[in-house]
C-alpha cells in the first residue's frame, strides 16, 4: 500500500482482556518495527522484524506482550491480560532493510485504552 496501515485506530478494552493490534507495512519494506507512545514513557522501541527472521523480544515490556509477522509482511502485536498501564498509542513503522539512510515510515497508530 501507499503507507503503513494500522488497525484498529482506537481500541477500548476491559482490564484482563486480550487485544490484537495489526500493522500492514509499505509493500516491499522488509523491516518492521513496533513502538509504544505514552505520556509517562515517551516513545519506546518494542520489537523489530526483518523479513521472516525471528525477532529479538528483549524490548517487549513484559511476557504478556508478543508479536508475530506472517509471510514477511503483516504483523500483529498481542497483549494478553491487559493492564491499565498498557494504555498507550502503539505505532508501527517500516523501512527498507539496510536502508536506515532513508528513514522510517510510521503508521497512524492504534490508541489503546484499558478500562
Amino acid at each position: 500500500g501507499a503507507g503503513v496501515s494500522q488497525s484498529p485506530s482506537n481500541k477500548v478494552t476491559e482490564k484482563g482482556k486480550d487485544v490484537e493490534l495489526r500493522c500492514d507495512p509499505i509493500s516491499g519494506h522488509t523491516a518492521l518495527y513496533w513502538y509504544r507512545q505514552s505520556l509517562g514513557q515517551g516513545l519506546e522501541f518494542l520489537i523489530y522484524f526483518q523479513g521472516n527472521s525471528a525477532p529479538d523480544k528483549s524490548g517487549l515490556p513484559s511476557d504478556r506482550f508478543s508479536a508475530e509477522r506472517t509471510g514477511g509482511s503483516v504483523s500483529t502485536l498481542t497483549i494478553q491480560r491487559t493492564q491499565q498501564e498498557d494504555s498507550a498509542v502503539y505505532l508501527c513503522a517500516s523501512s527498507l532493510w539496510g536502508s536506515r539512510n532513508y528513514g522510517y515510515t510510521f503508521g497512524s497508530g492504534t490508541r489503546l485504552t484499558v478500562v
Partner: protein
Amino acid sequence: ELKVEQNPLFLSMQEGKNYTIYCNYSTTSDRLYWYRQDPGKSLESLFVLLSNGAVKQEGRLMASLDTKARLSTLHITAAVHDLSATYFCAVDGGDSGGGADGLTFGKGTHLIIQP
C-alpha cells in the same frame, strides 16, 4: 544505554521569530532523525542526517548534525503558526546492521507559535 535529550521540552514563540531546538545523545552514532507530530497524528519524517556536518533544509526548518559533539539542532527561521507541533529527534545507535535496535527518541519539544 543510549540516551537522547531534547531541550527545550516546551517552547512558546511568536510568529516571525527564530529559535533552535537542541538534541544531545550519549553514544556514538552517525544517524539522526527529526520527526514532527501533530496532535492525535502519527510521526512525519522531516530530516535524516547521516554524517558529521550534515545540514538539511526544508522551508523554514534547518537541521544539522555534529557527531563529535553528539549534538543535532533544528533551527526554525521566521516561525509561522503552521509549524506548531511536537518535534522529536531520534538516534539510531545500534551496532548491528539494518536498524535492529530501533530508534531511541527524545522526549519531544512541544512548540507553540502564536500570531
